[in-house]
């Protein structure tokens, strides 16, 4: 059972590398019970798109450089 701090590490790393199966399960389980972490997760995802505002056209490198499941 992971705590919020660890959950934020996983939701951050999820944007940079594929999570291991056990990490994905832990994160999903935590998010299903923690509203604050769900908000944090949404915020990280929004920050992850920050580059799009400059090159408003969909960025070609985005899908390959992000490792969202």
């Amino acid at each position: 059972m992971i705590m919020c701090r660890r959950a934020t590490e996983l939701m951050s790393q999820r944007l940079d590398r594929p999570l291991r199966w056990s990490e994905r399960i832990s994160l999903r389980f935590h998010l299903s019970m923690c509203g604050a972490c769900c908000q944090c997760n949404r915020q990280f995802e929004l920050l992850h798109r920050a580059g799009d505002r400059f090159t408003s056209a969909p960025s070609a490198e985005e899908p390959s450089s992000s490792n969202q499941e």
Partner: protein
Amino acid sequence: MNNNEPDASGEIAQDRDAPSPDASLAGNQQDRMQRLAAVRPRLLSFARLHLRQNTAAEDAVQDALEAAIEKDASFSGRSGYETWVFGILKHKILDIMRAQKRQGLWQPLEDESDDDAIDRQFQQSGRWQKEARPSSWGEPEAVFENERFWKVFDACMIVLPDTQARVFSLRELMGLTTEQICRELAIKENNCWIILHRARLRLRSCIEQGWLTGEDA
């Protein structure tokens, strides 16, 4: 060479009266110059986020604009023109960052030591501190379109520690992978993930304070 810019402005339309190849070429170039002038502010705020210095950012943008004019003929028209210019600027910024690093202008990279600003967001147990619990920022699409949100974002980038800002902007604005960033900065990938985690937590906390306490909230 793309002679059929889909969103060509009035300049091109006027050239239809004199459709000699030279005139339409000149029209295209003039159209491009206008588009460069229009995209310049965005290039500048992009460069500032990376270089954190007005003069360096202005120089990078100037170089990129000159290169765009010089290399005009090599614009294939496959990507959008603005995207192409941004690509040139990204290369310039990376060159400048590499040079800064070589010249020893960077603070040594922070190691894995603790970050108080992060520790303050969590209790000892690993739960959020009550006052640090993330709140909703509203509908993501609406937030994304909101200019004030990006003003808050830019302000928060400025107060981010140098290393965190540098790694975050390479990852999230430049779109490098963490592997590429590690190569650029000569750090371990694990360290890179730690830095990104801290940068994101600091940014979200700073943005939340500025965004939700603002007048539109």
